[in-house]
């Protein structure tokens, strides 16, 4: 085993090694992994953001508060952000303006509100291209916006997190907040999808 350039250890073994170091220093990593995974799976879900969006669609006073101070308005519904997410900004879509978020430097999102970022959001292709050719990228992703709609791309920083407040779809008059929330997806709150009007029969 005197190979001067040993091959790189499999990634699982490298995770094991880091976990072992933290365990040696008394940090109980295996317990934390269980707890953190449960938190991510059960508490950091897009249903949180969906509730905020549905409330903003049905309550104009709440909408105004949300646009003025996203963090305080999220807290009204019981949603917290990590301490280092100091600023939460909701970006209001209109018939003429479509917002989309990204993190060109890495992967920042308001993950306690919309859930952890999807795989493609962290990929190089999205990070590199969406700030340069947003209309093309969105079209490739299935969102073909009319040319007259202005696209605003928001590059998330570490301390300011953005969430898109999508347009309320037509055909939802009189719907309850809960039913409206069921339409709102993570992709819509990132801004790579618009929320389709529900089928007539439902």
């Amino acid at each position, binding site marked *: 085993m005197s190979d001067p350039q040993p091959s790189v250890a499999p990634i699982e073994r490298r995770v094991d*090694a880091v976990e*072992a170091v933290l365990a040696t220093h008394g*940090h109980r*990593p295996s317990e934390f992994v269980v707890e953190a995974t449960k938190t991510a799976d059960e508490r950091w879900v897009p249903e949180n953001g969906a509730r905020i969006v549905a409330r903003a669609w049905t309550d104009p006073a709440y909408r105004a508060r949300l646009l003025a101070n996203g963090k305080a308005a999220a807290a009204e519904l019981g949603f917290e952000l990590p301490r280092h997410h100091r600023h939460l900004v909701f970006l209001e879509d209109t018939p003429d303006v479509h917002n989309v978020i990204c993190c*060109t430097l*890495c992967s920042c999102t308001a993950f306690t509100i919309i859930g952890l970022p999807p*795989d*493609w959001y962290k990929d190089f292709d999205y990070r590199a291209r969406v700030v340069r*050719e947003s209309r093309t990228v969105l079209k490739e992703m299935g969102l073909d916006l009319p040319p007259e709609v202005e696209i605003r791309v928001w590059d998330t920083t570490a301390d300011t997190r953005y969430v898109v407040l999508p347009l309320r779809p037509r055909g939802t008059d009189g719907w309850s907040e809960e039913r409206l929330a069921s339409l709102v997806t993570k992709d819509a709150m990132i801004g790579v999808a618009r929320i389709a009007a529900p089928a007539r029969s439902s």
Partner: protein
Amino acid sequence: MDGIHDLGGKQGFGRVRHSPNGPPFHAEWEKRANALYGLAVRAGILNMDEYRHAIERMTPRHYLSASYYERSLTGLATLLVEKGLVTPDELERLAGGAFPLASASAPGRTNAVDAPRFRVGDRVVVRNEHVAGHVRMPAYIRGKRGVVVGVSPVYPFPDDALTPLARAATIAIERNEKRKHR
């Protein structure tokens, strides 16, 4: 730093491999890697700015060939070494093979206490500034003209997170996809 991580506007990349509401994780080890950096932050071993910078310091070849969670793990492991919790040799012994880490840090900026206070509506030009250490300004906005559309609350200056005085301005830069550059 003008690192490989600063991808905004880079050309030559391909179609986004998008699936509706794509999953954040694809394997069990990814969940563990993600939780372990969270643990290190919670335990006060490192802060978020150090962690981001450690990822940015990965060699370009490694950065581009590593998956997101491998980059995260590499940043964490690098800081565990730099903070003296483990040696590279011990990490490699534990992992049973080579454990590539990020390169050393270069000097960054200290916080400017006289930094300008921006107001919404101010017209600004982004500094054409090159910083060897950690910086949050993506290269593609250098020298661009814009309008301040938002101002953040005060938060720790990411280049030098011991001096909690910074405030960020969000600026709007107009560009037309069809227009040629400059």
